[in-house]
């Protein structure tokens, strides 16, 4: 048992935090959001330079072969700075699918460009009817000579409007809610038949609804087993959940710090409002919620690669529940304690609140994961 970072990890943490402190203050973020692109090319280049875009990739693919702790460090810093860039979409989701399911040739074709910051990926998976069920896929891929033809609609594709390459899930067999019969396809975002409707998200990032109409791909576009991709999708989504938990911890830390600062400076009735015991206790409750979430984010990080799928699922779902509940409490209380200014776009805290709200809805909210954790038999071995 050991909670210390290695020297390399500490270096990573320091350099990411320094980069963000220098280049990603609230005003800089506003400009990036206002650009309507969902990212800043300069920031993206800095990510590449720091090695963040290839962090979990093998060295031969321009990466560092880093593990979940390194991802946690980066995501927590991103959460603290409210980074909107499609890092999760490109490196964790898209990159993760290629890394875990792709052939050596596919990996070599895609990952080095991602690591270099020259290619952005997106995972086109969710569909309107599926809610949070990863196996609910109606988009269909039909054998077409050597290749495949894909038809369907995908939604909530994070970073989907500016990605260069999409990884699209589509059904090659079975009925729409079967676990078997799902494949993954690498699709050029500009391929004929791909129509993207990009939009801003509630939390300042970008996503897209994507229609695929007779989109034709070659046989080499399939990642792994064309009818057996669900396990790898689940694995990558679990890694994404662990990453989101870390991001949420960073954002919650920032929410608490901002709230405490406000309590110390805002005067009412001739005294800083932080002198009022009811507000002091609220802040203490926020700290307790944060520490519990931090513990579960650590747990998710440690367990994302665990061998036993039942234990892994319970851990990941448990973490998402705790983080979702803590994030809701901390986000809401941060607004409440900031009073009116918390409700304004001019003040940073409202943006933290919105990001925390959206993290809860990504890949299953707290209720959804509570059901999964209960089905998996809970977290305390009886």
């Amino acid at each position: 048992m050991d909670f210390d970072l290695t020297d390399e990890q500490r270096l990573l943490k320091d350099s990411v935090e320094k980069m963000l402190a220098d280049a990603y203050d609230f005003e800089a973020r506003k400009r990036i959001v206002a650009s309507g692109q969902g990212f800043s090319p300069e920031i993206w280049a800095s990510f590449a330079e720091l090695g963040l875009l290839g962090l979990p990739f093998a060295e031969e693919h321009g990466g560092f072969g880093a593990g979940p702790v390194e991802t946690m460090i980066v995501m927590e810093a991103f959460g603290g700075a409210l980074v909107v860039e499609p890092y999760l979409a490109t490196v964790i989701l898209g990159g993760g699918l290629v890394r875990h399911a792709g052939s050596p040739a596919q990996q070599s074709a895609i990952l080095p460009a991602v690591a270099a910051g020259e290619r952005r990926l997106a995972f086109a998976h969710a569909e309107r009817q599926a809610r949070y069920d990863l196996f609910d896929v109606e988009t269909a891929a039909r054998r077409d000579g050597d290749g495949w033809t894909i038809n369907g609609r995908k939604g909530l594709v994070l970073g989907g409007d500016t990605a260069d390459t999409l990884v699209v899930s589509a059904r090659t067999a079975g009925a729409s809610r079967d676990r078997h019969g799902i494949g993954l396809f690498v699709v050029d975002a500009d391929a004929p038949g791909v129509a993207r409707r990009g939009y801003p998200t509630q939390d300042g990032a970008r996503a897209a609804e994507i229609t695929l109409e007779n989109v034709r791909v070659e046989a080499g576009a399939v990642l792994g087993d064309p009818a057996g991709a669900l396990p790898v999708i689940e694995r990558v989504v679990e890694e994404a959940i662990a990453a989101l938990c870390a991001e949420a911890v960073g954002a919650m830390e920032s929410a608490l710090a901002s709230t405490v600062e406000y309590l110390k400076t805002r005067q009412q009735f001739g005294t800083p409002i932080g002198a009022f015991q009811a507000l002091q206790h609220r802040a203490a409750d926020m700290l307790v919620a944060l520490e519990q979430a931090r513990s579960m984010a650590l747990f998710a990080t440690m367990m994302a690669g665990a061998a036993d799928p039942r234990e892994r699922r319970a851990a990941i779902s448990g973490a998402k529940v705790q983080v979702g509940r803590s994030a809701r409490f901390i986000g809401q209380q941060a607004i409440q304690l900031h009073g009116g200014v918390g409700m304004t776009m001019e003040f940073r805290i409202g943006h933290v609140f919105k990001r925390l709200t959206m993290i809860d809805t990504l890949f299953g909210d707290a209720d959804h994961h509570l059901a999964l954790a209960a089905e998996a038999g809970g977290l305390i071995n009886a």
Partner: protein
Amino acid sequence: MDLRLTDEELAFRDEVRAFFRQALPAGIRGRLEAGHHPTRDDIVTWQRILNAEGWAVPHWPVEWGGTGWSPVKQYIFMEEMQMAPAPQPLQFGVSMVGPVIYTFGSEAQKRRFLPRIANIDDWWCQGFSEPGAGSDLASLKTRAERQGDVYVVNGQKTWTTLAQHADWIFCLVRTDPAAKKQMGISFLLIDMKTPGITVRPIQTIDGGCEVNEVFFDDVRVPAENLVGEENKGWDYAKFLLGNERVGIARVGVSKERIRRIKQLAAIEQAGGRPLIEDRRFREKLAAVEIELKALEITQMRVVAAEGKRAPGKPDPASSVLKIKGSELQQATTELLMDVIGPYALPYDPHEEGANEEPILEDWAATIAPSYFNNRKVSIYGGSNEIQKNIIAKAVLGL
């Protein structure tokens, strides 16, 4: 003791309901049902329909357009309006400055302003809060200096709701800087077209612009626009804030939202079947319904006791209504978040005349903004923390 409405009250409810069904324009109803805020025109249109019917200002004295209804009937009227759903009458006029004017204003002020408020010929806004005076309202700093026939006003107000549409603002201003806090404050009516007034919109986290900052730079206000006596403004403000709590629970709004939640949860899918069939969701919903039913009865108890209290002396139990009412307004927006699930994500402000197709159904696009926006209800009008202070002191004697 009987919680049920009497036959006469039931008949009244049916009459009101029928009128709303027939008189409320479909476009307005549709926008509100989809979770949008009413537009300025929606509010004006609806207020004039009510005024034509003689129902613009039921709670006012009959000589100024009131209906003479019992508190119970007024409550029924308000509930039915919220559930229609119709736009709420602009509170700053009919519930705030109107009662202050007919209670404390001069005859000239009454004749000049009250009919125009009832018909919303003037759009009013409220100039109370300041950057340094929120919960601690009495520490306000905006100055009004008497110079002959005018007051010269300098200072800043904030959180001024819908000031962008306003013709008039009623303000608390400091007329005696030497006096202590609550003393030395006056209640002034100011024409928004007066030179020296600047309105700056504040964008809120839902993307909307409901509130504003209002700056006063040597604004000259005729002395006849002073309400009541100079330096007595704090008394009028307390009277006004007491009235403000009537209907603060907004039970009808939450009930209407429950209705929407049930409709939409019957459409949205979860686990391959309608969400409404999911046991956890239904129990979560039922738990909110139970609290809401309890609140409705709590409100009826306050209403029933209303006739027995001096006007302008709110029941301290109204703090219970404010706390629970705001919690339930927020809980219903959270249930809507549960309904829409992951599709809360797109920000789709859906401006009329936009080129692009909307991303979401109209009702879906308002859900996350409405959740964000409703965080305000436990902050404004005396935050829930302030309400708990009131309960502890005024009700429990702590």
